[in-house]
């Protein structure tokens, strides 16, 4: 039974690949799955595949890391101090829906054409979900925990570290997971301003290159697979005992 449960998702992916193959076979332009695999092999053979993957992962790590470093403290402050919430929330809600693509000209003006521009765009995209979730997480910490802590005269930084942060952590992690997903999602758009590297660059360059749609789809597949692996890794965080208490169901 367990074996079959594991087989179901593989079966779904298999059906989709067969459907793709059938749909793409008569097309002159749409690549079939085997052409995409050959494209990936070709890129790997030239040694550029690892280069693109590393470049994208590097930019995402930098942008996302910076977003966490700023968003968690800011979100915590906004969740705890009503004045901070009133001050920053309108600006955050105003900037949140703006696509990173719209920021490209400004990124070039501020950061030039270097790794800093795509990093900035990735930072922007992952910053907001983390701020919003952290704010909500801290804001919604149950009053009983706070009262209990007060009764035991826990205060200052220790109060934040031992009560607020652990209580809000499950939601902060949800924000981190969403943030990482979005960071990886915008890698294609962000790398429109990248120099000669990155999976987003690979897709844009292959679109420009005559009819290399096999490489366009190869880039899409690799982004999908890495995104899936990153999400699996983030899910591991949700399994920590520090977080599990919040969930109603068992794994």
């Amino acid at each position, binding site marked *: 039974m367990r074996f079959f449960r594991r087989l179901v998702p593989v079966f779904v992916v298999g059906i989709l690949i067969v459907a793709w193959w059938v749909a793409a076979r008569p097309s*002159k*332009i749409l690549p079939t799955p085997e052409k995409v695999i050959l494209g990936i092999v070709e890129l790997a053979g030239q040694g550029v595949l690892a280069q693109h993957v590393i470049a994208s992962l590097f930019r995402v790590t930098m942008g996302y890391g910076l977003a966490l470093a700023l968003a968690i403290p800011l979100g915590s402050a906004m969740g705890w101090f009503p004045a901070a919430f009133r001050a920053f929330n309108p600006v955050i809600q105003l900037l949140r829906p703006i696509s990173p693509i719209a920021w490209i000209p400004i990124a070039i003006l501020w*950061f*030039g054409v270097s790794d800093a521009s795509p990093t900035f765009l990735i930072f922007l995209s992952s910053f907001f979900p983390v701020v919003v979730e952290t704010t909500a997480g801290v804001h919604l910490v149950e009053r009983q925990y706070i009262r209990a802590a007060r009764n035991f005269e826990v205060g200052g930084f220790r109060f934040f570290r031992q009560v607020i942060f652990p209580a809000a952590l499950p939601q902060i992690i949800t924000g981190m997971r969403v943030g990482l997903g979005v960071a990886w999602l915008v890698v294609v758009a962000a790398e*429109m301003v990248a120099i000669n590297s990155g999976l987003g660059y690979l897709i*844009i360059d292959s*679109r420009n*290159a*005559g*009819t290399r749609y096999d490489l366009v789809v190869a880039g899409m597949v690799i982004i999908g697979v890495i995104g899936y692996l990153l999400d699996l890794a983030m899910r591991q965080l949700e399994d920590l005992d520090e977080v599990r208490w919040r969930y109603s169901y068992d794994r």
Partner: protein
Amino acid sequence: MGIQSGGTAPDGSSTGANSQGNPKVPQTAQFVRYSGWPELKESFIAGQVKAAMLLAPMAMDLADKGIPARIVALGHRSGAVIMVRKESAYRTFADLKGKRVAIPSRFAVDHLFVRRLMKEQGLQTGDVTLVEIAPPDMPAALLANAVDAYATGEPFGAKSEMDGYARILYMTRDVWPTYICCVLTVHEDLIKSKPQFVQVLVNHVLSAGHWLDHSPSHRTAAARIASDKAIFNQAFELLRWVMERPSDRVTYGDLRLMRDEFNQLMGLSLDAGIIPHPIPYETYVDDSFMRNFRMVNINLEEDTR
């Protein structure tokens, strides 16, 4: 990039032609502007666009890959520039050794222009860092010193020049007067189903080119037409700058196809690695419409303002 779609009508922006009032031209034609080459190419491949102004190497490559694309006329000649900051010390391309030069994409003809200058001035591949930036973002990149120079088609060169912080280092008209960039490419379906329509289209495009280069007032009139929201949606003053400073910055008077020029472009494309193998001229060109060209009268108001 001025492009057409549907049944197709001459591209009013770069040619000044107008199908209105000519009973021979089907009135089903529709003009559609695309703001990126890949999108336009994909629409052409899908057959949604039957005629388009495509980059010459792109059209060659499509024909080679079995997409029924045929070049029937040029879109313009010359019209690429290399811009640098006004106060910079660069006087020749060789001065840019070790610097960053922006190009629209490595598949753009502007890239071939840069490579040709590098070769002429003894620079090796890698002596300049080529950075791919969308042309509309290039003026800002130069202003921010993110790049030391940029190579692009108009009006994105004139933009920084008009705004006062950049100057022209090279114009194709000075160093490569037969430069070909955009070519009128027609889907073979359209050639087979409506050859007389394609002939009317080519007649209008070529005639409009003559009309444009015939008098400065025509160029001003064309700039005004092209500045329209539905066509280029660029400031009239900017397009006027391109048309008039100098008047042969971009030329339209001779839009005939020349085998030698295409062979030269093919050689440069092969050398740059953007086309994998030589493609015979006959594969991507249909010059029958050009040979049967008949001048038509272009009736547009002259701009006296």
